[in-house]
């Protein structure tokens, strides 16, 4: 018997079930699934309905390999800089398991946290027109739509920003994909079939993040 959900329940479930998936089986993403994902992206909201987003679907293994190299290099640089200044150690101070901490440092400083792009069956490079007001917000909304549809299709995805963050990497990415000057590379979304289930990452308690009317007064009060 399949589980049944109301629309509200199904929506929340998709949102809560989304994970950042970095390991994929060799199975390809079907064209039908990709069509659904891209249609979800197309339906995102945008300021003035400008729809500045454009998408480059990358399946070619040689290009994927280059995306992985670019992303891994970018992440490796960024996280190594954080490590050598001890900021990463401060960020992970509450993690008591030394083996886990070491593994996390290695994953981040080696760039492996993003280099996995090379092994994703398909990546959607999200880019946007610069001649609009709200490019970062519009494209982010589209990306969330992509991630939710991926989850609904029982696929896995990861939102990778590494090769788009530093202007030096973005320039190389633009050269690689032949993106014109008026277009900004925003993010890469890798998509594939997950190799295993993933646990949810922790979220801050809701009473810590919501305020009533003005900053500082908790919206959710402790029970009396």
């Amino acid at each position, binding site marked *: 018997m399949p589980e049944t959900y109301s629309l509200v329940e199904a929506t929340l479930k998709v949102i809560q079930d989304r994970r950042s998936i970095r390991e994929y089986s060799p199975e390809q993403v079907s064209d039908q699934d990709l069509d659904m994902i891209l249609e979800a992206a197309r339906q995102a909201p945008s300021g003035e309905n400008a729809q500045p987003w454009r998408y480059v679907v990358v399946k070619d293994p040689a290009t994927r390999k280059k995306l992985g190299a670019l992303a891994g290099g970018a992440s490796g640089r960024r996280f190594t800089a954080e490590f*050598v200044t001890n900021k990463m150690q401060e960020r992970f101070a509450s993690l008591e398991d030394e083996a886990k901490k070491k593994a996390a440092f290695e994953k981040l400083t080696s760039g492996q946290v993003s280099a996995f792009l090379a092994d994703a069956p398909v990546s959607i490079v999200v880019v946007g027109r610069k001649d609009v007001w709200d490019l970062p917000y519009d494209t982010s909304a589209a990306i969330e739509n992509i991630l939710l549809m991926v989850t609904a299709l029982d696929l896995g995805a990861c939102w990778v920003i590494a090769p788009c963050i530093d202007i030096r990497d973005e320039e190389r990415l633009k050269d690689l994909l032949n993106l014109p000057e008026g277009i900004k590379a925003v993010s890469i979304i890798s998509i594939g079939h997950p190799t295993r289930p993933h646990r949810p990452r922790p979220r801050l308690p809701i009473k810590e993040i919501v305020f009533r009317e003005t900053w500082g007064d908790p919206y959710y009060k402790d029970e009396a």
Partner: protein
Amino acid sequence: MKPNTVSLEYSNALMYELEKAFYDERGKGARFRTTTVGREFFNSKCLPILKSGEIDHIITTVRSLLQEEGIAADVTYTGEDRLLRVRVERCLHRPVEDSMLAHGIEPFTCLPANLIVLAIEEKLDRPVELAEIKLAEGACQLLLVIFEKRPSLD
């Protein structure tokens, strides 16, 4: 109005306001969008006089250029493994960094650092990351990390 001259105070105040506005929009990520600031200056003034990819030659060349242009009084460095610690004395853009710090923002961009990074990337094809800018009395202490060769995308 004097032709072709503006005060340093005016220029630095504008630079500070631009950096602050950018930081307010992009937060800590702003640093990654300013890594090529100074590239035109580098291409026109620095690149033509870079003769080799030796780190010592690169720093010496950048130091001479900054001194000749009246941008900084001195640039010295020490290296250990892949870390490069650079000290920039009396940079004329220092008031920008002071203003950032006074407003609780860690300085995130530095022209001398960018020149060194651009030079190493150009001559050695090795990526470099500016990890830290620390302000000392009369000088800025930069920490750079030099990585192995960049992967080819050709």
